[in-house]
Structure formats: structure tokens, C-alpha cells
């Protein structure tokens, strides 16, 4: 028997596709967010309200990932943004799926692309899609222990939105407890309590989002990724 050194990352192919996606985004100065949560935490509702609150400030497109149906993409289109639906039997989106979507979904006229991942608290953390920042939704009805049970998703998130805070009085958790548990495993995350129904907390979240977009645009500028010919 002979031992052969391999030393290869198992997700190397995904990482390579992600790097290619990132180059495409940079060439177009397109800022990309990857949005994560458990099923039912309110990702699509959050995006609907975010589109409304931004009120046309950026040209935003959304890529939706789901096992089946166009329901979420239809909701986003109704909220006034172009949307592309990926249906996959996988439990998470992978970078090659985004690359394929980019051949069909026109991104040249966009400033911001939001990728709504499949509702899942484990796998998306391992698959870089080429995004510039990751946003996690964690709703009060999920209980206080989620960050301890699924630490990697929280650790990899740049921003965590504590959603459905209007329902906190009907649960046995407090916003302080949810927030502390998130920060225990993700010390650098920006944490904002929000309610998509009442609009509570949206000004802080929108503030973070616009600052993240501007920061990334500045980074594009510094790295020379500025688009000189929008047709290319």
C-alpha cells in the first residue's frame, strides 16, 4: 500500500466558483448579501419591508433559494424588485447555482444583490457564494438556545436580526437574552431587534445595511474594481 498526500479542501470546487462569482460582482460594483435563517424566521417578509423602507435608494435584485415553488420570488416581484427563483433538492445554495443563475438573471442594472438562502441552520455556513456580507435572521419564537445549538451559522454572520420582537411578550424569552446568546458565539456581529410587522428596529437595520453597501463600494473603488463600461 502506498500513502499519497492529497491536502485538498473538500469544498474546494465551491470555493473556486465563489471566487469567480466575487470577481463578477466586483467587476460590476455589485454589493452582495447572503441571507440565512431557519425556515419560517421571516426572511422574505424582512426583504419585502426592507425594499419598502429603502424606497428605491438602490437598484436591488433578489435571488431566492427554495426546494420548490416560485412563491418567494413572486412576493419579491410584488414588492417591486426583480427576483430569480432557484429550486434545488439541496438543503442549501452552492456557488455554482448562483453562477448559473447569473447567466439568466440580469445583474448589470443592479447596485445590490440579495441572495435569500434556503431555510436551514447548518449547511449554508459552509458554502461561500461569493457574497460580501452575511445576514442572519433569528426570530424570538425559535427560543433562546439557537445560537448555542448552531454556533457556526451565527459566528459566520456579520449581522443578526432578532426578528418578531413584537411576539416576545408571548414567549418565555427576552430580547436581552437572545442578544446575549448571539454575542456569546458571534462577538463581532451587529445585532438588531426588529419586527417586520410593526417596523420596529428597521431604521437601525437599514442604517447598517446602507453603511455596509457604502463600505463595500469604497472597497471596490480602492481595489480598482470600478466599472468603466457598464456594458461589459
Amino acid at each position: 500500500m502506498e500513502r499519497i498526500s492529497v491536502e485538498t479542501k473538500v469544498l474546494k470546487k465551491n470555493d473556486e466558483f465563489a471566487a469567480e462569482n466575487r470577481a463578477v460582482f466586483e467587476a460590476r460594483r455589485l454589493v452582495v448579501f447572503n441571507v440565512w435563517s431557519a425556515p419560517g424566521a421571516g426572511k422574505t417578509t424582512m426583504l419585502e419591508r426592507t425594499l419598502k423602507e429603502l424606497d428605491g435608494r438602490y437598484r436591488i435584485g433578489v435571488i431566492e433559494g427554495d426546494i420548490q415553488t416560485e412563491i418567494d420570488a413572486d412576493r419579491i416581484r410584488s414588492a417591486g424588485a426583480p427576483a430569480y427563483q432557484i429550486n434545488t433538492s439541496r438543503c442549501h445554495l452552492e456557488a455554482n447555482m448562483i453562477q448559473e443563475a447569473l447567466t439568466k438573471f440580469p445583474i448589470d442594472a443592479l447596485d445590490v444583490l440579495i441572495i435569500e438562502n434556503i431555510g436551514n441552520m447548518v449547511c449554508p455556513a459552509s458554502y461561500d457564494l461569493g457574497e460580501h456580507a452575511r445576514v442572519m435572521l433569528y426570530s424570538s419564537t425559535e427560543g433562546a438556545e439557537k445560537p448555542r445549538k448552531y454556533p457556526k451559522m451565527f459566528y459566520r454572520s456579520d449581522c443578526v436580526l432578532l426578528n418578531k420582537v413584537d411576539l416576545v411578550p408571548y414567549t418565555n424569552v427576552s430580547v436581552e437574552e437572545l442578544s446575549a446568546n448571539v454575542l456569546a458565539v458571534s462577538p463581532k456581529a451587529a445585532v438588531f431587534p426588529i419586527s417586520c410587522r410593526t417596523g420596529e428596529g428597521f431604521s437601525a437595520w437599514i442604517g447598517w445595511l446602507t453603511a455596509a453597501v457604502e463600505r463595500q463600494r469604497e472597497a471596490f473603488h480602492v481595489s480598482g474594481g470600478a466599472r468603466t463600461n457598464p456594458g461589459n
Partner: protein
Amino acid sequence: MHEAGIAASVLEIAETEARKLGATTIRVVKLRLGDFSGVVADALEFAFEALKAGTLADQARLEIERIPLTAWCSTCQATRQPQEELMLWCPACNTPLEVMTGQELDVEYIEIDEPERGREPWSASA
């Protein structure tokens, strides 16, 4: 439950390396798996066993080395090992920690039957 996809990638990487060398039988696939990789070792082994049939690795054993989570405190200039109850803050000075190890998901090596070099189908068998 992305372990099936992960196992398929592991097999693909192992087979690609074996083919480069003209090997037809893989005996061992050695994986480094971090405790903070988000991959469940049992589920990965199960998927590997289910998917290896019909590949060059259908006789192969999957060896998994678990890599513990370690994190760095930039204030204390010290490595910390967060325990079961994960807290990514330094227990001594309360600085946010940087994860150093524990996110690994790498094929380290494979063990193959040595290809019979120089032996062609028409070679004398003596």
C-alpha cells in the same frame, strides 16, 4: 444534512488523485474534520459507506481525525480552547476570540494499492 454532498466530494477528490497515479484500488481516505466545521462525522461516514460502491474507493475505509476548536485572544496573546458550552470570548480578559482551528474539512491523504508499474496486458506474467 449536507453530508451526502460532502461525501460525494470526498470520493471525487480521492478518485481523481488515484486515477492520476493509475491506481485502481483505494484502501484508505483520511479526512481532517474540525469540530466547528458544521459537518457531523457519523452522518458523513454513513454517506461515504453508501456512496462508495462502484467507485475506486469501494473497498476503502474513511479515517476521520477530529480537530478541536481553538481560538486566539489577541489581548492575552494566548490560545483558548472553548469548551462544550461555546463562548467566543476570552475567559481571562473578555476579548472577542478569533477561531484558529476547528473549521477544517480536508482530505489529507489516500492510501492506494500500488499500480503495477511497467506491466502491460501483454507482459509476460513470470
